[in-house]
């Protein structure tokens, strides 16, 4: 019999806010020392009250728009209770009764993956175990950092679809500025079951908790598929609905202790946080601030005359497309800018092994302007760009210091040629006496005087003309 996988995902993503969800401590940018970024509120001291970070709400709504969700204009925060040392209040503020976004979808190739809901919640802290003293320490830096949980419907049928979805989610969230999606900042719970192909019933479900590496997610799904099919076909074990974890060393999943999963979380609305009403005006404001999607951008670039393939590359990465938009806005022609970004900048990134384009758009714009105006040669432009990548140099200053100026007029060159000839009687006499090589030493002197400026071909022809006059 053939079997098919039925997979649903719960994906937790850290939002790119400047502060935590309910206090003014710094947000997602991770501090260096444990408990650097902690206040009485996010460490569970009595007396503190939560105040909602408006920006987090806006980012969650943006994620909803991006995933074609219905936005609940009346949304509430609820408390989820459980005891764990990394949860200082012994409750997590989340959205249980009225999540902010519902009923969306994402297109993965030909397949449509349903999104059940997106809700906002606070992250927990971190336990650090010290083997030497056999003691656990608590780090509250991550406590109350805002997350969204994106809950998909059980619409995935293969591990490849899951991976494609997560990659798309990651690039879209980054593109829209909703989340940096840094390493480990995107965590998944994978719900998985197996059923005979064509069946409409759902099999017994396992949930694999807290996965962040794409390759581990893929391996875990493949492992679970085999385990489930074996259990059904060969009765290797009795499947039960349970929570499991992936062990990357042993390359298999293990059930988690029952205690960790059987909890009653005693959800109830948080009386300290008034329901949030997102009125039409606010909703429209958030919508207006949405950046164009990658597809929209690509089409727009093609209209500007950029080749389809180049437009696709430019729009695939937020940093590349931002650079393109900024430099074009500074008055450079789209085609030239595209070529500089895709050839020169990406060349530099490859050379320096950089993963993102982080130079100042104004500097690239200035280099292109200098080359287009013939102030410097294209080769000189590349030299400046390289220096900008390496040392973030000032473009004009760098050109001046390195005498990259190509526009020295011929009368000045001629004057220099004549002066140098006048100062090198012996070499001139040698040349005239048939020692052709003597011209090379005069040429060298001229180039030295001109400090490398001027077109060598022009200089040589002027020199010959003068010597033979």
């Amino acid at each position, binding site marked *: 019999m053939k079997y098919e996988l039925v997979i649903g995902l719960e994906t937790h993503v850290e939002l790119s806010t400047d502060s935590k969800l309910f206090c003014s401590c710094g947000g997602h940018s991770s501090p260096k020392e444990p408990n650097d970024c902690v206040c009485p509120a996010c460490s*569970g001291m*009595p*007396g503190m*009250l939560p105040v909602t970070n408006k920006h987090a709400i806006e980012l969650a709504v943006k994620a909803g728009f991006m995933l074609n969700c219905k936005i609940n204009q009346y949304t509430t925060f609820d408390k989820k209770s459980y005891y764990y040392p990394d949860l200082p209040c012994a409750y997590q503020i989340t959205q249980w009764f009225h999540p902010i976004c519902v009923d969306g979808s994402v297109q993965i190739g030909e397949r449509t993956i349903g999104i059940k809901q997106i809700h906002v919640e606070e992250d927990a802290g971190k336990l650090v175990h010290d083997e030497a003293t056999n003691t656990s320490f608590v780090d509250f830096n991550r406590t109350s950092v805002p997350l969204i949980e994106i809950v998909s419907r059980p619409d995935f049928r293969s591990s490849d679809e899951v991976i494609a979805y997560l990659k798309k989610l990651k690039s879209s969230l980054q593109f829209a500025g909703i989340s940096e999606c840094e390493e480990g900042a995107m965590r998944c719970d994978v719900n998985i079951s197996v059923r005979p192909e064509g069946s409409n019933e759902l099999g017994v479900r396992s949930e694999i908790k807290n996965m962040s590496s794409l390759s581990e997610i893929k391996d875990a799904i493949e492992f679970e598929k085999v385990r489930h099919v074996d259990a059904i076909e060969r009765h290797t074990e009795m499947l039960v609905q349970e929570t499991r974890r992936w062990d990357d060393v042993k390359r298999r999943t293990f059930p988690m202790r029952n205690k960790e999963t059987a909890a009653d979380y*005693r959800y*109830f609305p948080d009386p300290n946080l008034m329901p949030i009403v997102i009125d039409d005006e606010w909703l429209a404001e958030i919508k207006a601030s949405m950046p164009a999607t990658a597809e929209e951008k690509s089409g727009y670039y093609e209209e500007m005359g950029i080749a389809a393939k180049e437009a696709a590359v430019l729009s695939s990465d937020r940093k590349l497309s931002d650079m393109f938009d900024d430099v074009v806005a500074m008055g450079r022609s789209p085609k030239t800018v595209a070529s500089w970004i895709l050839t020169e900048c990406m060349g530099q990134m490859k050379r320096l092994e950089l993963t993102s384009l982080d130079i100042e758009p104004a500097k690239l714009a200035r280099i292109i302007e200098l080359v287009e105006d013939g102030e410097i040669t294209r080769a000189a432009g590349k030299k400046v760009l390289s220096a900008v990548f390496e040392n973030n140099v000032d473009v004009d200053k760098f050109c001046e210091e390195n005498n990259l100026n190509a526009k020295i007029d011929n009368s000045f060159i001629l004057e220099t040629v004549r002066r140098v000839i006048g100062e090198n009687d012996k070499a001139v006499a040698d040349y005239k006496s048939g020692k052709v090589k003597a011209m090379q030493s005069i040429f060298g002197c001229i180039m030295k005087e001109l400090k490398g400026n001027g077109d060598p071909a022009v200089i040589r022809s002027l020199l010959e003309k003068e010597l033979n006059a």
Partner: protein
Amino acid sequence: MIYINEINAAGKIAVDDTILVKDVPATAGSKMLENFKPLFSAEAVERLEKAGYAVAGKTNVGEFGLDLMGETSYFAPETENGSLVGAAASLVASGKVKAALNVDLNGAPRRAAAVSCVDFIKPTYGTVSRYGIIACACSGEQIGVTAKNADDAKEILSVIAGHDSKDGTSLPAEKYEYSTEENVAEMKICIAKELYDAASAEVKAKIDGFAESLKKLGAKVEEVSLGMAEQAKTAWQILMSAETTNNLSRFDGVKYGYRTPEYKNIDELYVKSRSESMGFLAKATIIYGSDVLAKAKYEKCYDKSLRIRRIVCDKAREILADYDAILAPACSQVSYKPYDTADAFEKVYEESLFTAIPSITGMPAMVTKGVQLIADSYKESVLLSIAKSVEV
């Protein structure tokens, strides 16, 4: 100990030990917080200090403020001639302090004021910031003022009321103007029948006397059946216990507060630290509150109580559309004797019949001359004016 007793603090303000004052230990009457020192002051305390008032010190409260009037304090209840005394109320009564800030969570400062014959006003929910309260029932608890007379209560309340961005439920008005000069002669007041009937003869006599004074002033007094007193009491019990359970769960022995000296694992650390440091009433409230929040009971307990809250609010507003204020007992008796701890949960539940309506609706209430007055939201001036005109 940190509590003020005989020190000369006339003119200063006492603060309940459930309200934080920076660097001054705040125990909330519990062994759990015996050595807890807060890093900041409550907004109400900050406002008082900014306005030039000095904090006299902290006053003893029952554990987390859950009891009748302080009898469950880990640091021993205050009594006089064999009867219970509210610490703040007795200091105000004897003139040792000008006034006191108290958290009205489940009526304790109202009962204490009634027994000690001083004034206490619990303002409309959301008018005084709850920032800096050792919180229990966030949806209804409120800081109020115990004072010797209506003018003092008005003076202190004017200082502490107003919007605070640190409290998400704080109402938007920056300031509130209160008056003690509204014309009582033109007022219509109703006596809450169910609460009157449930009180002792001595308490009934106090209500009768107060009603007579009002009539003499020209006010109209009638008896009205509320039709929701029992429901308000039970629903508030459920909401209050559930929220308290949730708020007290942060006291787990991990970060601060009492930690059991010996434990083998984290579960034992939790269980022993909490069991060894909390008293009977706190434990009973936690067990009850956990039960009503359980998944299987949520719909018919907590959720239903939220719906009852709305009905009680509507009903109270309806009555207060016809009357300026409701006159009712604040407690069943004129004094309380110490009782067996094991009865605490039932005892407080019974007494909350008299105090639950303002707690669950967020409406203002005032105790004066041993009786309670309830008005519609923002109508503190009605209460203060009645209290003032009956004073003289």
